[in-house]
């Protein structure tokens, strides 16, 4: 699924890295616990989270994720935006709640189970 499609489906606002909207993601992960995110490597994934701190960006960077969606209209800080720009990670903010946002992406075909074994 293209990041631009995620943006449309979730009625999300683009926070940074607009030039990467045509990049694809193949799986998704929704969590506020970063160690749970780090537990299973997924291929080119999007991270949905309600957590707002720099470790969200670093976690995505370590996992080679290329998009983060902040749910419940949470907005990343200026420092987080800088980190995301450095790492080339698209940041989106949606007013939808976690459960709904995940459900919308899942029912539109982003099933999120393409877990890679390392």
């Amino acid at each position: 699924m293209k990041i631009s499609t995620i943006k449309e489906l979730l009625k999300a606002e683009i926070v940074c890295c607009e030039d990467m909207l045509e990049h694809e993601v193949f799986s998704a992960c929704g969590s506020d616990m970063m160690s749970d995110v780090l537990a299973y490597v997924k291929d080119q994934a999007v991270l949905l989270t309600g957590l707002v701190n720099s470790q969200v960006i670093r976690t995505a960077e370590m996992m080679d994720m290329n998009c983060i969606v902040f749910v419940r209209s949470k907005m990343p800080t200026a420092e987080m935006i800088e980190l995301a720009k450095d790492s080339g990670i698209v940041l989106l903010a949606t007013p939808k709640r976690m459960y709904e946002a995940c459900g919308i992406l899942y029912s539109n075909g982003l099933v999120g189970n393409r877990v890679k074994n390392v």
Partner: protein
Amino acid sequence: MSEVLNFHFVVNGEDFTSAGQASMMMKRNLRQLGMPPEIIRQVSIAMYEGEINMVIHAGGGEADVNVTEEYIEIILADKGPGIKDIEQAMQEGFSTATDSIRSLGFGAGMGLPNMKRYTDYMDIDSEVGVGTTITMRINLQ
């Protein structure tokens, strides 16, 4: 006569926001060395979890990464409180982290198990009241 590259980092324990900087720098170093993406990811995640642990439990520490032809070795050493029961600490879901750490997205009891999951060898040397040294290796061959 194989060459060993050493990278040394000081992990600042006072600032949770900057935790992960050493892992991020190491990730970039490995990219420059032309390491395969899967190996880079394994090293980055294992080191990042270790770095976070040092910041939230031990007030910081030092990280050394040795790159040899056979493996990449990560050594994380701190002078923190030590781990009382290593077997218990290795169980997924076991954590001694406070609620304030959980509210930052960590302390789910996945850090040490994740470090083991992404590495080929892991040793924990810990003494209560003295500190902890964790050695991890990821094979390159």
